[in-house]
């Protein structure tokens, strides 16, 4: 098991390096920070543009690879460089990472748990009311982009607030300033519920479809028939023998869907005014902030790969057939 994890980890590092390199190089080629200073009134003199750009290591007059080298040597030491506004990327990173984590952790865990649960129940009650309701709903949700879900949730919240006569759901920001203690906690929850829901809905729809299919496949399998031939009734057989086998493929889907979740978080943060990594990214691209963009690509690659790594370990733990002793 140790060598398995070690090998996976080496593979992991290689992929992170490639992904980050690709991100940096593409950003350095496609984005043009000089643009930010052109067309200003009064015009910024060229030497001062160059001096600003040199300071943040984004001067397009230097070769790309040289800038990349400088950036990498910083990253190795734990320094992600400066933003286009000459501030520390690290600081920005620290401020924003927990904002995004709050959404991502809630989104992935609740999405997976509820999705699997609904999927299992749908499979057991195939073609019954529960199955049909959740089946059609998940079709509709999967066909709706996250940003549209978020907007609709926002409209819905406004409508509810209006009916109630007070603000139950907050639709902008992470909390109302100047609150403390339990009031702050409750207030944060009121802020958190909509953006989280926007992510969770998609996750639930995604997992429930696959879990249902996987469960139905297991339902028709020979070993479940054996379990029933032993004297377990249909439901017992399903929960004692079907569930664990049917959940196995979900681990792999967990890894795949994590990338989608991160992209989804970008929309949600933007729509609900959360200053997280996604919102930062959109802003960074629009301001030609190469270093910030690369830092976010690095962050995403690490997260996606970590999810994949976790999925592999999970599968190895659950399935004796891939366990390596």
């Amino acid at each position, binding site marked *: 098991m140790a060598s*398995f994890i070690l090998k996976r980890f080496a593979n992991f590092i290689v992929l992170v390096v490639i992904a980050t390199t690709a991100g940096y190089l593409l950003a350095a080629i496609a984005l043009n920070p000089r643009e930010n200073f052109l067309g200003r009134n009064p015009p910024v003199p060229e030497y001062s543009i160059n001096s600003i750009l040199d300071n943040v290591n984004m001067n397009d007059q230097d070769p790309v690879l040289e800038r990349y080298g400088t950036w990498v040597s910083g990253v190795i030491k734990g320094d992600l460089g400066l933003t286009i506004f000459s501030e520390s990327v690290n600081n920005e990173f620290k401020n924003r990472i927990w904002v995004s984590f709050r959404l991502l952790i809630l989104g992935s865990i609740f999405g997976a748990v509820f999705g699997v649960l609904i999927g299992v129940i749908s499979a057991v009650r195939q073609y019954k009311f529960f199955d049909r309701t959740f089946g059609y709903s998940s079709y509709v949700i999967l066909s709706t982009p996250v940003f549209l879900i978020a907007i609709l949730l926002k409209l819905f919240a406004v409508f509810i607030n209006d009916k109630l006569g007070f603000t139950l759901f907050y639709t902008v920001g992470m909390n109302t300033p100047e609150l403390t203690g339990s009031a702050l906690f409750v207030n944060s929850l009121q802020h958190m519920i909509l953006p989280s829901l926007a992510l969770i809905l998609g996750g639930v729809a995604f997992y429930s479809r696959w879990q249902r299919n996987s469960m139905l496949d297991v339902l028709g399998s020979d070993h479940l*028939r054996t379990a029933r031939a032993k*004297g377990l009734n249909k439901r017992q057989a399903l929960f*004692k*023998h079907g569930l664990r*086998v049917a959940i196995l493929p979900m681990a792999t889907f967990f890894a795949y869907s994590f990338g989608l979740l991160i992209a989804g978080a970008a929309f949600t943060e933007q729509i609900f005014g959360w200053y997280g990594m996604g919102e930062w990214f959109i802003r960074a691209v629009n301001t030609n902030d190469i270093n910030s963009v690369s830092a976010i690509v690095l962050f995403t690659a690490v997260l996606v790969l970590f999810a994949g790594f976790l999925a592999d370990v999970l599968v190895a733990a659950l399935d004796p057939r*891939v366990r*390596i002793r």
Partner: protein
Amino acid sequence: MTSQAILQIKNLSISFPSESGMVQAVRNVSLDIYPGEVLGLVGESGSGKSVLSLSTIGLLPNSATVTGEVILNGRNLLELNDQEMSKHRGKDISMIFQDPLSALNPVQTIGHQIAEALLIHQDISYEQAFQRAGELLDEMRIPKPFERAKSYPHEFSGGMRQRVMIALAIANAPKIILADEPSTALDVTVQAQVLQLLKRASELTGAAVVLVTHDMGVVAGLADRIAIMYSGRIVEEGPIEQVFAKPGMPYTVGLIRSIPRIDAKQKRKLVSIAGSPPLPVDLPPGCAFAPRCPARQDICETKLPELESLSGEQRVACLRKDEIQNLIATGDLYSTEETSTIDQSKSGETILSVENLSKSFPVFKGAVLRRRIGSVHAVDDISFSLSEGRCLAIVGESGCGKTTTLLEIMNLVAPEKGRIVVFGKDVSEISKSERLALRKDLQIVFQDPFASLDPRMPIGEIIIEQLQVFKVPKVEQMARMQELLEIVGLDPAHANRFPAEFSGGQRQRIAIARALALNPKILILDEPVSALDVSVRAGVLNLLADLQKKLRISYLLVSHDLSVVQHVADFVAVMYLGSVVESGPVDTVFNHPRHPYTQALLSAVPIPDPVAEKTRERIILEGELPSPMNPPSGCRFHNRCHVRQTLAPKDQEHCATTRPVLLAQAGNLVACHHPIGQ
């Protein structure tokens, strides 16, 4: 049978909805099962035998419509709901399934799965149940049972898994064990072990066994009583000796006489039943077998024969049941002629020879991260040759390397080690165009006709595909296509149809026609009939025999079925774990085997004759085929060899350390230090 029936099936009918209408899988079947007996339920695929057995344990799919009664202890099981029925499942009736790989839960230990079966019906602690699971594994002769109870199914071999399934089935000492093709997925020597254990299981628990199978040989060896199903109905039923000796239904007669027998004294043309089983949709009002029946009369097509007593306990569903024995005596029912044996004196020249051929495959482990952990020596230093107009058979169990050998020959490229010479040309020295030219003379017929024909191509096009490769003029292509279809007994008007519209036997004929397109000199036959229904096998075997006589083709036949080899081949080479252990003319090898493995293999082949089968002495080999990845040292067979056990310790040691080579022994070539009869 004088005792009270333990399970009564009364007027049972089962149907399923399908795209083209209701499938009548079981039609008005009544059958009694008595305590302690072994009942063989025999039929071809689609005859309804599996559906019938599943219905008694209440595991039919929900879409099935079931009418009739299944009575156990005075209760009609069909009226019970899932909750109530599960109290009987495993306790009163248990079941063994065909495929022991998928029938066990892959993520739980064997011991846990058996313990669970015990805990469902017995009030004991988990520890007691796990202990009992180990004892059950011990009773099923699984070595180190308590240790193995902690293993997962994928760590067991096929035969071992089937033992686990039997242990599972007897865990709660049921009254009835349903065994659905329990040995079909296994090798012949392992099959013999498993059948023996099944018998033991029945003796241990006193349970009645319902043995569902398509193999008349297996039934003959094990069953006390037989029920033959055709198209959803029981067409004949009775004590096994009586049914085999004096069958009363033309279908039974054909079935018994269409099977090649390993103990046949001379080669007879096999009885072949015309046509193929009907589709179970919109069945005709009369006897379902009538369209294929040699004793058919007009009334058979309209009047459905009931299952009625013929003599004693033998019951037959045939309108002419009383005349059948006379028809057999006068030779009016399935006439057979003796096959003219090929002139042995005219020995043709060698057209294919394989010398010291070896082939190994790398082995990888791990689904997530693959790594090479060794190699399998699939074929290890084998030699043989094939002469013009002859048939050489390679026999052996799965993993012995027989298919690898074929593919190595068909690839026509330089082998890893050794030489392959076709028509005097060494394949490692030929050019690309010469290789293409050789493909004209060397063709192959695969085992599974459902996989060997492109489902997206009309059969006419399939047959002439090679003519197109060799740029035969269009006009000749069409003519040849018509001719080929006629040769293999198909209607040339059907050339535009797709393979899906043909039955298994017809498809195999199409595959043969394709292989014959350019008049090849060598035809390689890879298990040509083992994927076919029993009643159509004989037709294909007869066709192959006729073709050989007519066209003077040489056959290289690969088979695990020794009775087919006995029927078709002139020479035989027996392989075990990648090497040839014995070879020679079929008659000498089969009648006087010199190698202990050949002897055991022959003895494991079931004979479709209850009297011969139950009286003959059996050699049942210990253990299973070792993994070809790390084969045993010395003689590869030494750890399973029954002869070695009788030797002096010094000689035993010799077998385990020194590998024997093929040496001439009274007409055969044998690789054994202590051949039989010396």
